[in-house]
């Protein structure tokens, strides 16, 4: 892997995002939430929120703990029932689609996934074929081809016959993403996919998602904790607080000191990221402040 070369390239490119001509066109329709309400047993977390995930783009959702960002993503994947509003995939109301039908259009990697004891990588990834298979779930050689391409795309083909529990955290996360890819959806949602990964593997993972987005035109939307990585990798940044969107749009315009203060109750300087040119939040605490 030519890591130094790519770093060098990045320092010369101020806008990290490539021109539209270099990107695959959007593979599928936009996923849109209209006036959605979500909550848990009477406690409302989100009430009347609108959000459009631009087709063929990467959207990152950031916000303080318990701001409802994960709940929103889960709601958009129908893992969590809506208590109001509606979801639209293109111009179709998602509530008119069967779960299976939705699972062929929207994939989701939730926060907690369990790999059954002893399951091998290829077998786990093959479970992503579920919504495409008929009764009794016979795998065909077409399924094998899809699984092979998902393994190759995520760089875990070498591990196909290894038990998932023997893998490192970074490898395992790639395997789960391969499973979502095997689902062959035009929209992929990920709930904090970089949690538990060290910084090198966080970057690897975000690079992987970026290449999927660019090569296949897959719409990617993810909840991220790391603001600066979110600003660097997202085409569309959504900042949330207490169940509402406080700012959204191009990261360069959205991520300002005022927005960070409003959302996170945090004083910060926002400077250009020396690598990507995207905004970089430098927080101010009570100590270690030189100026």
């Amino acid at each position, binding site marked *: 892997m030519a890591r130094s070369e790519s770093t060098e390239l990045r320092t010369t490119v101020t806008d990290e995002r490539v021109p539209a001509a270099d990107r695959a066109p959007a593979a599928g329709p936009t996923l849109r939430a209209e006036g959605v309400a979500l909550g848990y047993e009477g406690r409302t977390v989100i009430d009347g929120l609108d959000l459009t995930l631009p087709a063929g783009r990467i959207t990152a959702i950031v916000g303080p703990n318990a701001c409802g960002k994960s709940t929103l993503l*889960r709601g958009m994947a129908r893992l969590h029932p809506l208590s109001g509003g509606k979801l639209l995939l293109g111009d179709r109301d998602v509530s008119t689609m069967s779960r299976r039908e939705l699972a062929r259009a929207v994939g989701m990697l939730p926060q907690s*996934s369990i790999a059954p004891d002893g*399951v091998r990588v290829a077998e786990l990834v093959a479970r992503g074929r579920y919504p495409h298979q008929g009764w009794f779930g016979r795998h065909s050689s077409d399924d094998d081809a899809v699984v092979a391409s998902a393994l190759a795309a995520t760089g875990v083909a070498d591990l196909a016959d290894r038990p998932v529990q023997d893998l490192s955290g970074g490898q395992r996360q790639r395997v789960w993403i391969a499973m979502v890819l095997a689902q062959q959806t035009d929209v992929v949602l990920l709930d904090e996919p970089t949690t538990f990964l060290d910084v090198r593997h966080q970057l690897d993972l975000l690079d992987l998602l970026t290449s999927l987005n660019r090569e296949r035109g897959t719409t990617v939307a993810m909840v991220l904790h790391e603001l600066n990585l979110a600003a660097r990798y997202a085409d569309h940044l959504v900042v949330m607080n207490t169940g509402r969107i406080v700012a959204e749009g191009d990261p360069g315009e959205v991520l300002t000191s005022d927005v960070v203060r409003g959302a996170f109750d945090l004083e910060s300087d926002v400077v250009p990221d020396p690598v990507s040119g995207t905004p970089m939040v430098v927080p101010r605490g009570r100590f270690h402040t030189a100026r």
Partner: protein
Amino acid sequence: MASSPSITTTVPRAAGLRDAIGHLRTARRRRLGMVLATCAVALAALGTLGLMLGDSTIAPGTALLAAFGAGDAGDLFIIQKLRLPRVVAAVLVGAMFGLAGALFQSTLRNPLASPDILGIAAGASLGAVTGLLTFGLAGIAVAVSAFGGGLAVALAIWFLAWRRGLHSIRFVLVGVGFAYLCQAFMTWLLARAEEREAASALLWTVGSVADVRGEDLGVLAVGALVLTIGVAVVARTQGPLALGDDNARALGVHVDAARVTTLLLAVGLVALATSFAGPVAFVALVAPAIARRLLSDGSPALTASTAVGALLVLAADLIGNHQVFGVAAPVGIVTGLVGAPYLLWLLATNERKERR
């Protein structure tokens, strides 16, 4: 066992990789086939042994012919009326407990979640005993009563353990409580009963396949067939369900419906088997564990558990019936002797499932 080809050296070409994935899949299927074939051979061998052995030993050829209706009247009577029903009952009951255990464990994602531990087998026993002693029921009505008992316990556990989703640890702990409760009630009912009726107490506390006869066997077989067809319909959801509720939903599974259906079918299997053979201890706990180890592919191992369960109960009944260890014991005592150490081992080594 079929060894799975390693593809570590043959990655790059897309077609090559696809074929390698196909090979892995075939290897997995071949391994399952091998396990099932081995179980079938062992079942045939032990079954034949079961027909041969008894007060008078009958030669294997004669015994098998008699099982299919040929031979002299004496042999026919011994084989068809005494020994064959017992062998068939052991196989059916074992298969049903094995399958039920695999369903419980995979759908609740907990190797401890077997109907023995959860009190569902005890609930079914209590249902059967109540039907027999309190309402004077007989035949299929006892089975229905056992089903009612098992289902009541399952529902009670469900409602008590449900807090914004089903947490399997709570499910197991609540179930353990119900197991004791049911056993206490059953002991009380049996203690109050007439001596003659209480003679069957052994059946309802440890389980036995010694007294399952002709028409009972028919009910058992038909019931098992119907429930197994039901299982075949929901079996497909078990793979995604094993990845967690969220993943299963994201893959398009109706998680709650799939889980309720699966548990109902599993309760049905346990109740039906229990109503004829009593709560044969630990088979539903141990058989899936053995099957999963034999396959070691992370699958719910439904068919393999069914085969292993049948084999376990048939072997245990032969051991108990023919005093292999010097004493005669009903099948449930023998399976208990195998199962209890496994349970202890499981509790001692129970590692938390890794996240991700």
